[in-house]
């Protein structure tokens, strides 16, 4: 999975597959662009014509409410036409391959695919096979990456806490199964936070996680001490094969974020969670709904950040009309290939 796949020959971002390989400058550009979309909320018409006439397909092979909905709203605010497909329920059950599904949707002149898939690398594989004018955004692939979640988390941190260089950040919980954690770590390291920690039981820490540039802790008391940002993760029971945690009750006692554990962090620390939350498992309701929680603003900012990503990758790319004309004229010169046309 080479990150170079995300860029065109001129070095412009044309797919967003992973935060790995994005420069600090590119990340800041996305965050700044998102900032300019925030003010659209004050307008009579909350829509701009940037992607008018473009077709966006939300292609979800794995269920999601928040991510799919915010992508849909984001695309609609940019005036694109949006189609939502939950594929597990249709073609794949009839035996169609992933690439066949994509080729069929491509034949319907789709300009952007937003892909979520349970297999790591699915979005990369699709990106390798689409023609130059088609763009891909990875909306979560297996345990690998969820780049727009990582970016909206960075946007939220910047809004509440300002400069990254001064911040101590802790990512807490099921690091092992979390594509969100991986995207957050790449983004926070690239943006240069003062200190980045991961806190989890040994069974939920990937081996050699420290190679990514983080400090690993197995005790909340040490891991949360003095941090400015606490990023909770969802315990992904559906991805767990075998015994990763002794019991849910014990996990909550040791790693669940309660007001008492949060008190170890800096007084004005913010609490984040990518959702959906397991209340009473990784987070106590008193914290989730408490004054330090920015969990709902994360959802709101997700719209602006996804608008920014779409706007940046769709602008100034290879022109689809030329490509299509070339295809048609080739077909016209070669009547046998043009099928039943006379």
């Amino acid at each position: 999975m080479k990150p170079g796949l995300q860029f065109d020959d001129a070095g412009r971002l044309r797919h967003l597959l992973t935060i790995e390989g994005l420069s600090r400058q590119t990340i800041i550009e996305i965050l700044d662009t998102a900032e300019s979309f925030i003010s659209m909320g004050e307008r009579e018409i909350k829509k701009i014509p940037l992607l008018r006439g473009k077709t966006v397909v939300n292609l979800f092979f794995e269920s999601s409410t928040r991510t799919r909905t915010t992508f849909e709203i984001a695309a609609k605010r940019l005036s694109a036409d949006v189609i939502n497909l939950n594929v597990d329920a249709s073609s794949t059950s009839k035996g169609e391959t992933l690439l066949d599904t994509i080729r069929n949707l491509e034949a319907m002149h789709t300009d952007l695919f937003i892909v979520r898939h349970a297999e790591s690398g699915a979005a990369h594989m699709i990106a390798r096979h689409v023609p130059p004018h088609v763009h891909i955004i990875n909306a979560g692939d297996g345990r690998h990456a969820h780049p727009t979640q990582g970016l909206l988390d960075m946007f939220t941190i910047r809004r509440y806490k300002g400069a990254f260089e001064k911040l101590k950040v802790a990512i807490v919980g099921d690091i092992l199964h979390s594509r969100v954690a991986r995207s957050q770590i790449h983004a926070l390291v690239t943006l240069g936070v003062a200190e980045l920690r991961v806190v989890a039981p040994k069974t939920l820490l990937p081996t050699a996680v420290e190679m990514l540039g983080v400090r690993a802790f197995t005790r909340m008391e040490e891991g949360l001490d003095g941090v400015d940002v606490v990023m909770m993760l969802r315990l992904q029971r559906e991805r767990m094969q075998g015994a990763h945690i002794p019991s849910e009750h014990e996990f909550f006692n040791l790693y669940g974020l309660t007001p008492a554990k949060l008190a170890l962090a800096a007084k004005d620390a913010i609490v984040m969670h990518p959702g959906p939350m397991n209340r009473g498992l990784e987070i106590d309701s008193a914290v989730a709904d408490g004054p330090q929680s920015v969990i709902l603003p994360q959802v709101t900012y997700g719209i602006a950040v996804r608008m920014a990503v779409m706007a940046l990758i769709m602008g100034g790319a290879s022109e689809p009309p030329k490509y299509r004309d070339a295809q048609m004229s080739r077909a016209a010169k070669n009547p046998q290939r043009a099928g039943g046309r006379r």
Partner: protein
Amino acid sequence: MTSAIDIEAAMTRMAEQLRPLLKRRPLMIGVHTGGAWIAERLHQQLDLKEPLGTLDISFYRDDFTRIGMNPQVRTSHLPVNVEDRHIILVDDVLHTGRTIRAALNEIFDYGRPASVMLACLIERDGRELPIEAQVVGEHMKLGKKEHIKLLGPDKLELRVQEVNG
């Protein structure tokens, strides 16, 4: 090449043309970036009471699919509701008219103004759309390959450049 145009004198001419319109309590809106600098100065010179608005038309450009996003998008800021108000739209150079087309579209997404009037520091040749300025600081005729640009914001300066293509 720095242009010989006296910007201060041109802005004073604009202010004089705008003065009779002030009884309609117009809202002034400058187009980023040069238009906003001119609007700021006119706003001060005319002592307008309503706050100044600014527009970044990046999201309304008609060449987005060709050249992509402006790397430095600024936020549009219209502090007062435009509904049923008289608008004075200010830009630095009126050339093809495409910027103004985009600005008009954006203004209408904030509401339905009573009227929009266009005030430009420089009105040059090369229109590609049926758009004209009602208030002009200076008229100019330039070669097809010549491009005039306002530099600022502290000291305003007009520069004529040759462009390729």
